[in-house]
């Protein structure tokens, strides 16, 4: 799981045994399934379905965590657009219909938050302690700000289970 301790901890032996017992891909799948259930439980079926897709994506070809964070930022940016566009006919009105009759922004925001949490958790886990040193200077041409930069994701190159 994303938040499982990397070193030590009381759960270490349990995790080790689990890892021996379950094949890696199975573990990942189970982890994503569990996270999808969690997301469905707190954010509803739409976001739960979206999270299943994110899980499948990870199982097939795990994206770098910063892609998730970037996607989260774009989705958050989409939310006000959906809000205004979805309420174009109601603008000026003060009513709960602004929210209840325009439900698109909610799931999008929830999905963005899920991506942000997952992306940051994975990114933080991928950073060695001493990598929290100086911020990465602007990258070479062609590299977008915010990309991992010259430091590779190892030592954790395997796809993180959720």
């Amino acid at each position, binding site marked *: 799981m994303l*938040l499982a*301790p*990397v*070193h*030590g*901890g*009381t759960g270490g032996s349990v995790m080790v045994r689990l890892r021996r017992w379950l094949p890696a891909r199975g573990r990942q799948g189970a982890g994503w399934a569990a996270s999808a259930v969690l997301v*469905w*439980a*707190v*954010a*509803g079926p739409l976001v739960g379905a979206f999270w299943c897709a994110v899980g499948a994506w990870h199982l097939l070809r795990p994206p770098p965590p*910063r892609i998730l*964070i*970037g996607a*989260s*930022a774009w989705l*958050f940016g989409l*939310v*006000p657009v*959906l*809000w*205004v566009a979805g309420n174009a006919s109601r*603008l*000026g*009105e*003060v*009513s*709960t219909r*602004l*929210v*209840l009759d325009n*439900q698109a*922004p*909610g799931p*999008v*925001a*929830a999905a*963005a*938050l899920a991506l*942000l*949490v997952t*992306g*940051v*958790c994975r*990114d*933080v886990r991928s*950073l060695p*302690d*001493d*990598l*929290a*040193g*100086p*911020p*990465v*200077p*602007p990258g070479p041409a062609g590299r977008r*700000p*915010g990309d991992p930069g010259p430091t590779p994701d190892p030592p954790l190159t395997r796809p993180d289970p959720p």
Partner: protein
Amino acid sequence: MSHPVDAGAAAVPTTGPWRPGDADRRQDVPAAGSPGSVPGRPGGSAERRLLVALAVAALAVVLSPAPGVLLFDTKPEVFLAPWRTLAHSFSAWQDSPYLGGPNFNVGLAPVTLVTGLLDVVGIRPWLIARLWRAGLVVLAGAGARRLYADLTAGTPADTPTGRVVTAVAYAANPYLLLGGATTPTMLPYALLPWFLASLRRGFAEPRGWVHPARAALWMAAMTGMNAGVVPLLQLVALPALLLDARIRERRRWPHLLRVTARALALAGLLSLYWLVPAITALGLGSAIAGTTESLSAINAGNSAAEVLRGLGFWPLYGADPGGPFLPDLVAFVTSPPIIVASFAGPVAAAAGAAVSRSRVRLLGVLLLAFAVPIMVGMHPPDAPTPFGRLLGLAFERVPGAVAFRTTNKAGAVLELGLGLLVGLGAAAFATRLPGRRARVSAGSAAALVAALGVAPAFGGGLFSLRAPVPGYWREAAGDLDDAGSATRVLFVPGDVQAQYRWGYRVPDDLGNALFSRPTVVRTTVPNGTAGSADLLAGVDLRLQDGDLPRGALSALARYVGAGDVLVRNDVRWEPAGGARPATVAAAAAVDPGLRLVRTYGGPGMYTAESTATAADRADAALPPLQRYAVAGARPPAGQASASGAVILDGDGAALPDLAAAGLLGGDPALLEAGALTPAALRQALADGARIVLTDTNGRREWATGRLANGTGALAPAGTDVTPSRVLYGPDRQTVAVQDGNASVTTTGRGMIFGPWSTGDPLLAFDGDVTTAWEVGNLGTGAGNALVVHTRGVLDVPQVTLRLPAGPGPRVSRVRITVSGGGPRFTREADLPASPAEPLTVHLGTGQAPARGDTVTIEILATAGIGYGPVGFAEVGIPGVRVAKVARLPVALAAELAGLDAVGRATLAATPVDVLLHRSLGAPGDPTDDEEPRLARDLTLPDRRGFTISGSVRLAASVPDDQLDELAASAPGETVPPPAVVATSSSRLLGNPDLRASRAVDAVRPGVPNLATGWRPAEPVVGEWLQVRFPRRQIDHFTVTQTGTGGAESALATRARVTIDGGAPVDVTLAAGTTRVVLHPTIASVIRLTLLDRVGSGTVQITDLGIPGVTPVVVPSGSPARTGSGSAGPAGVPGCRTIASIDGRPLAAAVQGTVADLLTGRAVPFTGCRGASAVLEAGSHAVRPVADWVVDDLDLAGAGSAAAPRAVRVGVQLLSRDDTAVTLRTAATGTPYYVVAGTGYDPSWRASADGVDLGAPVLVDGYSAGWRVADGGGHVVRITYRPQRAFVAAAWAGGAALLVCLLTAAGLRSRPRLARRARAPDGRWLTRLRAIVRNRGEDGS
């Protein structure tokens, strides 16, 4: 590697690898200088200057709107009377203004201490409120900065940019304008980062107590306002903090949990002073929560999107006829630029997470991950997520959990997460910018977006509450305070929340803020005890309905210990549908127990919005405040004789009826039968009490948003009527039962925003077309259904449906299903638009009618414009008879029937009276016709003879021609001659004075009376006026109207003329007189059916002129044409059957005048020729008759008039405060009740000369009281028991505070100190030296 850093970060040692815990070790040194500064890397001068500038800017924003006006964010008394509020805060019971109740706001004390200190130095209240708010904003920003600095210490993210941006993001966001805009939320919001920072420091020193103590102090400083809901909700940040420390810093769980447990335990100790009373007040808090905002309302706006932009708090999306609930903040949902900017927080946070590489981001997202699901809660309310459903279950089933239902209050956690991410992003982004100019540009752009996101703050949106208190209010408060503090001041009318026309709209009224004397006010939310809320509501509802008997207001004042009544004519009554000021003022003016002492303010000051109508002008003629003195007033605590006490079968709502019936002479102690134990009941009877059976304590739902028409229909036992003022169990309540051979239920959504009394389906079966079952407002009519269950299978050949009169939408299509008796039969039908045309739907196939025991009439479609309800005025099913009856409480009669021989002998000597009152509703309000007729089932304990009296009026359904016959019996009444008969399809509100003959009358022969006229019921279209006259030739007639088609002056514009039932002709009508030309014909009947109308108001046909026939007049003194007896010159002749009892006619002598009856008023009656009725023990049925409507029916039992008179004796009040009363009673020689004069609660205890008087009883409808059997004089000490626990808790909390302060100061923290303190020599001086030396070594 080197990297650019800001000047302020130049001192940060950036060389060498940073290790988790480094920063913590550095931070372990007590901070010096500014709260956020960390030794070794204090904020640079530029940063300091910027922070100071930001603080000044915050102060300027807070100070700028409406200087001199008190803008505030919590109870007004916190700023207007802080010391008085502080004094009252230190008690577990609060007496004012709801007649007493457990105090769940003890946590207000620390806040009032601060505002009090500001008051002492002479700062004006308005400025105190501004400084308080500005201080909280700055404190919040400083806390966020400190947490950020702690988290990033020693990392590249620890830059001035990051710190400042985090502070700004946390202290300036939409949440602080909405969910966090009140002190109970804002104070915990401001202190949350401080709490988390202290706790986090403790993780680095798991064995120490310093940081847990500091964290506890911060937590306790959040106070327990509103039962500490917000600080407790904010604890959702703890899992995030713990996980972050575990994952990112690899702290050990035992250490983390130990530190957290220590901090929470200490915080619990420090908070005992408010926790103990809050637990005591759990019941009251739950009752309030159950009647205020509903879960569906709370969760309508808090989608994830709204929550993440800091909004989602339900009032933002609410509006009423007075406008939006939060007009200063509507830009958040109406202005696209501000809407977009308000999303800057989550967008910037995600962007910041993308730009930054700091591991601290973990805490930011964890805070969001925990906060957002909680804040989204049960959204959307009609289909919540599984987690939302779980929350809903918890709110419903876990005691006290409902207090946490507004989960939006966890917003501090969300904003802190966003602030950290934004700050981290800004710190990283700043390093990538090429130069100072770029940084300034980027900073300016960000500041602009941030400012736009909180733009409403610059227009005064920081404060939702205003109190521009007019001078006349202060003058009145001064006068009333000067009059003495022994009695209370009763505010009338009651309110949903205080709402004055001068701009005050606040849940808390002005009583505690402006008055030293305790005040009493009724609010629709039951803020006091159940009995208090019930008593005040029962009287206020009838005041708001315009149905309060004379003397009832002063009676209430005397019973609640009010010496003065303050009539408030400056309230905004419109939003909650309350009584107009003129109605309330009139009720006070005619009360014989009230004397007008003084008025305050000039006529018309804030008493009316306009002078457009006569009613407006009546309001405008009033002063804003009127002070009445109460005759016979006495202090709340007192002594009442047990002899003559009233055992009331019902509840406090019976007070007006008791006053009207003259049963409150001497102000007898009121004992509610439902609150008496069998032993206490027997004792009360033996003491000489009397019994009064009433139809009060009705089982009905109450509306918390309405004043008049404030209840739903009377409900059967077993139905849920939450929220309600009803007391005790169903057998102690008046409940609805269905009389007849069928029962009627409904399915579907019913009425939105109910309850409404017209939601009663039996109104469609009462045979009265002026009443209707209404359902499906706001366009939700389709899908609702009436279901009739017959007591056996019967043939249903047809169903007749009639629509209600009135404008707005209507049912246009129905599906009728007959089932339960063979083949299921279904038929759909369209309904005519006109209410005057009933629709008969034939059911069955061929010659065989449908057959079954269940008939379902489902609404398939509606038509018409508007959001009003639809429904049916009448539903007719052959062979089905069903009527609604109110069954009075039955438990008392059962108890009395079980008395032993001695008890029955006592009962036989006890007067028993029965008071029945029809729920009249608000006059003129067609939605408030719950009970058009009085039908009751009552149970008597034994055989009694009763004298009958009451009041009665003509039924709305009496046909016009019968009214004319009655009018003809009275000289002076204008009626047509017998040969001319005027009839109509309806009268507006059934008013007899608006009958058909008013359109053919004359002031003198040949001159029509244009001051009178026929007014049809709304919506007018389809209603008809018909005149039958001696057969003659006519070639034209005239129609005269006074309306013009404008506002308040409607005009019928088209009509259909039918002569002798022949072919109809449509004609156009104009304002004034319209001449309708006919082919010359010989005729005897003209019918005019109205087809169209324009304008608002009502249509009035003032004259229908038929040449040679009308207008007509009967001169005064014409012979009577009806009635068998004689009466006075204008009296109603003879005995009239006005009701039936057990099927036998109840003959009454109607004592009013015909004129009164014909104007729709109720008149008194007595038993015919003084006859009395003898009723056996057991159940009796009081039923209505067709032509008369009984408003009140009083059955005075034999011996009632000669019953012992109660006596109230003055007591010597020795001392009184919120939780204790000491008084000296007078010796009377007979048993008496000591009345505490404050709300009943079983925790009240009393002792007489040190002897315990036992558990209290409910006396006077609201108060705790005790029976003193020996009748002697005593010193009676009355105390509220939980106060002891509160005092003990306060002392324990005080001790804990001292310990925490010492510990937090570091005196007991360090292991070395502890070791030295345990030095073997053990001498105190050595230990002190060790402490001093130790502190010196630490450099602190």
